[in-house]
């Protein structure tokens, strides 16, 4: 609907005035034609949602209409005005991450920053990052403690290993998906189209790092805690019944900012950057430190390294 109305200057950049204008029309027409009672959504939005194409096949106009619907939905559901963007990947950039495990003290500041930044369901207690506590000298994940007490860290004789999506370069989750709802973007980030995923959870079975999480319920987020700076492929509010995962804070990193977990880390254990830039910190780590990756034998080529001083 808004798609047809607004095709005049499609292809142009995000235009707040025009979108507010369209938003007005959308609500007006909806009230005239149908009861806006479809779970707080207008009939037109529900209809357009149902027939929405997958992200990679939407035209610029269609994406913009989808972004507007996402914003309207967030307003209806959470009573918050969010800004959902579609920042494209930067050319010549492929992101990589490295963690200095001799510095990590297991504070879990990254975990909590991530929950806030990415609008993760609070009641479902979903977390993209898991910090594993293991005995010094032991690296068997099966001996790890996932639920150690945060007040007592760092514990003498223990070491800590944060795990999240490794943004594999040969991602088994992408291969698994029967509807291509998850794929690798040109900047190396493996993303999910929450509006295309059918919720079969085959990708969860395929991921060797337990990085994918499912919305068993509608994620609950208190209005005042909602991060309103969102991205279609990232931290926008998710519907129920679909899979999500770490996306390297796509709404921040594509604008040149650091991921929230890195910013939150008090020990400076986290190094994030452009793998294609020879002068980046991450390239320095890869060139000068003894690095390793988890489960390298599986051939998934994680873009996520660990090293120690």
């Amino acid at each position, binding site marked *: 609907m808004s798609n047809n109305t607004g095709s005049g200057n499609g292809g142009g950049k995000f235009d707040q005035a025009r979108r507010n204008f369209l938003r007005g029309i959308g609500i007006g027409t909806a009230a005239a034609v149908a009861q806006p009672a479809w779970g707080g959504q207008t009939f037109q939005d529900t209809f357009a949602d*149902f027939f929405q194409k*997958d992200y990679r096949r939407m035209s610029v106009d269609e994406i913009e209409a989808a972004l507007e619907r996402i914003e309207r939905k967030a307003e209806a559901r959470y009573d918050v005005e969010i800004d959902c963007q579609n920042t494209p990947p930067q050319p010549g950039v492929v992101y990589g991450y490295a963690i200095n495990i001799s510095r990590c003290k297991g504070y879990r500041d990254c975990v909590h920053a991530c929950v806030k930044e990415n609008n993760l369901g609070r009641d479902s207690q979903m977390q993209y990052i898991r910090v594993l506590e293991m005995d010094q000298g032991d690296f068997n994940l*099966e001996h790890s403690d*996932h639920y150690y007490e945060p007040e007592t860290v760092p514990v003498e004789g223990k070491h800590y290993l944060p795990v999240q999506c490794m943004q594999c370069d040969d991602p088994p989750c992408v291969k698994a998906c029967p509807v291509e709802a998850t794929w690798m973007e040109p900047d190396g980030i493996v993303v999910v189209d929450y509006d*295309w995923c*059918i919720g*079969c959870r085959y990708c969860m079975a395929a991921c060797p790092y337990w990085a994918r999480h*499912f919305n068993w319920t509608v994620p609950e987020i208190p209005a005042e805690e909602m991060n309103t700076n969102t991205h279609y492929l990232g931290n926008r509010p998710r519907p129920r019944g679909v899979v999500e995962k770490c996306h390297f804070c796509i709404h921040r990193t594509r604008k040149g900012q650091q991921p929230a977990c890195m910013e939150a880390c008090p020990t400076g254990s986290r190094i994030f950057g452009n793998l294609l830039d020879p002068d980046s910190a991450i390239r320095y780590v890869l060139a000068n430190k003894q690095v390793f990756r988890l489960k390298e034998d599986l051939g998934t080529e994680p873009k996520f390294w660990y090293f120690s001083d």
Partner: protein
Amino acid sequence: MVVIRFIFDSVREMFRGPREYWMWLLALSLVVLFGAWRYSEQITEGLVVTGMSDQVSWGFYISNFAFLVGIAAAAVLLVIPAYIFDRKDVKDVVLVGEGMAVAAVTMAILFVIVDLGRPDRLWHMIPGIGRFHWPVSLLAWDVLVLSVYFLLNLAIPFYVLYSRYRGKEPNFRLYFPFVVIAMFWAISIHTVTAFLFSANPARPFWHTALLGPRFIASAFASGPALIIITLQIIRKLTSYHVSQTVIDLLALIMTTALQISLFFVGAELFTDFYNEGAHAASIHYLFFGLGGFSSLKAWIWFALALNLTALVILMIHPLRQRTVMLNIACVMTFIGIWIEKGMGLVIPGFVPTPLGEIFEYAPTSVELSVAAGIWAFGILVFTLVAKAVIAIEQGKLSCPPEEQRYTL
């Protein structure tokens, strides 16, 4: 149009029968409705009403799916002797077997659908308007082979029955190519379903080349078990002739398949336990428990005991030839394999998680009720199909002679 008349007559036949038959249909329908009602709960609340979690992300639904694909594939055990070896006695009942395949595939597909988080987006799979990730995704493969198998098992019996209905012998040359395709296809559905699991290095418990062969072997034990029981029921309840030689043949196949299946289980146990590495964690959980968690232990030992006892009965000829003993062995095999290849295969794949966490799963009442509804639906489908098939095969149902000359 004779076709329309054929369909009309068949449907009418499906709903014709004595009081007991109607009670049976009614009872099944009630269970179906009950399952549907519980499913609506899942639709409104979300999959949170199941026992599944991020840790164990597949459960009872997918377990039943894996098992039922095996039952569907087992129809080939009647198809081969009937059409390839041209055994008259088997030919008499082969359509019943194909009806069972149709019912089993229907159930398998329903089990996948109820497992979806977004069943409303099922159309995303349709090539063209959706995105069908074929040939890369094994799940896309599975959807493809199951749908085609479903159609094959509808089309062949449809043609054969339709010919009978018109008082003609079906043209063997015409449908034989499809029979050959259906034969290979039966193997493919179960192999692809096994590959769906074994394609995941992330899950060492499934990631074994033996999984495909194991699936086929166990299917060729559980499938005949079900067919043997069903054929006896048909023999009891109807005047339809089911030759004892068919049952003997199936019992023999079942014996061999169960032997092979148990041998595979043994091979797996040896490889995992001789040098108990990290890969053995899941199987350790299954058979002995892990870190104090052992909800599957009793089940898997029970299944193993059932299968072993059944095998002993089947391997002693005088025992196997006694109908009662054979039936006991069939029931044991069916339940034993349902446990071993259902929950016993799916759940340990998730325990421990790839990050070493141990989290247990148990189905909730919603899952059990929905599953019961789907099973009842499958049995209902089979009952109706079998009813029409038998009537046509017995010549009770045919079109009036003056219409037989029309081709359509």
